[in-house]
């Protein structure tokens, strides 16, 4: 009977082209908007590194004011960033993690040959950053461990900035002046634009990844400071040296821990480190060193902009309104067909059979609208991506197409249940004489 009901549904759609088009357009609009917003939310809230994120931990040490917690609403939470000293000693200099990265965001000036200098978004970090976060390379690689140890001035360029400076050419080995220092290009990234800047959610989680990446070892020698949030409870952090030496927190620390034992070992290391610091007069609060799994960290800090969630809820409500509006259209269409339904009932169709027949027609209408809506969503996301002027950012993948299809079926059900119930409840004898 499914095939038969589909055939009847298709015939009905063709019989009333204007009404069918209106119904399909209503669903298409609802699905288009809903799928777009759900996709944006999904990409922002989804796992940025599937299969790996559960091994990545954000390092938090409670170096804060002994008199009051970092966050008075959540006194159990340590500061959300690290001091330079702790990032260096507890992250960079530890041999326990499989990979580790201390980092901060800065803005430095690039001086291209024969062109005006311009400022570029910069990530100052350790070489493990790229492997830790599975950053794709187009040419070359991260600077080597030896280069990092020697404090060599090497740089990794984003695909975008490489295009700007060197066209599409492989620029590995070429040099570029950054601020007052000549850097050699060690690698060029492939286009990389995660929906959420998951490795630094406190300094613009919606921003694109940085344009250039330089070694952490050069940060202090070159006097580079961050362009982002700094929190401090002590004094003297306003100068460059003060920032490096004070209790100001402005760096992020990430580690990759491959097993529970490795995690326990690193946790012990952190506790011993802060015990040592306490003996030297720092860390006057009780030990509260946390290794926060990446996704838990994002969740706690509400990394996904609340507006994305609100937008998704509004879009789903809009889809609901589209579906509810469709109820009237379908009801009118079905009730006009009551005499035919009377004949079918006389010929042996049960109430349930009539109900299913009309529900299938509703779902067929919804599927037509859903397919159009998914195409609409694809187009809208393309427009959003172009407006963001980045590489492809939001895109429909299979799970999202599946979600769009699922929403379509639900919308068809919402729109169709009442009209289908009404038409199947019509007493068959009432309309037989009118046919």
């Amino acid at each position, binding site marked *: 009977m499914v095939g038969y009901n589909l055939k009847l549904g298709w015939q009905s759609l063709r019989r009333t082209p204007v009404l069918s088009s209106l119904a399909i357009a209503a669903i298409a609009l609802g699905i288009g908007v809903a799928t777009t917003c759900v996709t944006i939310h999904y990409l922002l809230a989804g796992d940025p590194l599937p299969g790996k994120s559960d091994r990545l931990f954000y390092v938090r040490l409670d170096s804060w004011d002994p008199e009051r917690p970092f966050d008075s609403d959540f006194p159990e939470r340590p500061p959300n960033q690290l001091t330079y000293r702790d990032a260096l000693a507890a992250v960079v200099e530890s041999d326990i993690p499989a990979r580790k990265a201390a980092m901060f965001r800065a803005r430095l000036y690039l001086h291209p040959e024969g062109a005006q200098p311009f400022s570029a978004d910069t990530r100052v970090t350790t070489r493990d950053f790229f492997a830790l976060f599975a950053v794709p390379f187009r040419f070359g690689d991260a600077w080597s461990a030896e280069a990092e140890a020697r404090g060599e001035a090497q740089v990794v360029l984003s695909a975008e900035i490489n295009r700007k400076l060197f066209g599409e050419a492989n620029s590995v080995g070429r040099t570029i002046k950054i601020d007052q220092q000549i850097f050699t290009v060690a690698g060029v990234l492939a286009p990389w634009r995660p929906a959420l800047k998951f490795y630094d959610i406190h300094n613009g989680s919606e921003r694109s990844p940085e344009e250039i990446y330089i070694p952490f070892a050069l940060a202090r020698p070159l006097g580079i400071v961050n362009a982002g949030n700094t929190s401090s409870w002590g004094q003297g952090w306003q100068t460059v040296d003060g920032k490096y030496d004070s209790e100001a927190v402005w760096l992020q620390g990430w580690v990759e821990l491959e097993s529970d034992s490795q995690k326990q070992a690193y946790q012990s290391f952190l506790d011993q480190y802060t015990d040592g610091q306490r003996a030297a007069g720092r860390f006057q609060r009780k030990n509260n060193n946390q290794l926060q799994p990446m996704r838990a960290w994002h969740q706690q800090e509400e990394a996904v902009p609340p507006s994305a969630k609100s937008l998704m809820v509004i879009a789903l409500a809009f889809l609901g309104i589209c579906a509810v509006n469709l109820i009237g259209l379908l009801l009118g269409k079905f009730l006009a067909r009551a005499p035919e339904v009377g004949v079918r009932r006389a010929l042996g169709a049960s*109430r349930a059979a009539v109900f299913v027949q009309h529900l299938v027609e509703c779902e067929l209408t919804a599927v037509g609208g859903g397919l159009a809506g998914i195409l609409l969503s694809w187009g809208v996301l393309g427009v959003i991506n172009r407006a963001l002027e980045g590489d492809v950012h939001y895109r429909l993948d299979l799970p999202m197409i599946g979600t769009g299809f699922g929403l379509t079926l639900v919308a068809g059900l919402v729109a169709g249940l009442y009209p289908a119930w009404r038409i199947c409840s019509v007493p068959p004898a009432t309309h037989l004489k009118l046919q």
Partner: protein
Amino acid sequence: MIRLEHLSKIYRAALVETLALRDLDLTVAAGEFVAVMGPSGSGKTSFLNVVGLLDGFDQGRYLLDGQDVSRLSDRDSSRLRNEKIGFIFQSFNLIPDLDVFDNVDVPLRYRGWGAKERREAILGALESVGLGARTKHYPAQLSGGQQQRVAIARALAGRPKLLLADEPTGNLDTAMAREILEMLETINEQGTTIVMVTHDPELARRASRQIHLLDGRLLDVAADHPRPLFAPTGDAAMTTFVS
């Protein structure tokens, strides 16, 4: 085939109750051809709806082919209607968007037969009404008589035991009406019980029995034989006229 015992049907509106059928007692044997007559509003359609399981009733008992149908669920009564009853309507009631083949196919779809079995039944039924070559025509492309023949094929395709006809020739000219009636007689001769509602006394006389309804009551049950149009009066002139 049909047994009604003290059957009553009441239509209830907000303030008014209408007794459409009153205390009907009737037995129709298998293979009978019964004509139901009566003026407009006498309850003929209500009678047909109740007998055809299209409508319920309020009091009494109804046995269809030996089965008590008084308390059947919608699913069971639909199945029984599909398997045991064929309908022929005055206005044919073909579905305009379906071609002849698909119209005849409708009851068989609800029967759950396979494609091959349905096809054989449809083509057989259409052949039997002389429309085997019109399977791809739509109702609008057929004459009234042809449409009624399609309706008969649709009613017969599922091989029902009972055929309910509601003014089957009401929308047809005399020649076509005769043709349809002959077709019904043939069907009856092959063993199908027929209950036909009609206003037309000539048609009713072709039935093996007539029953008359007035204000929902069964007035009388006529003889089991076709009756002459006029009873002999002894008047010679009248006798000559009639003969």
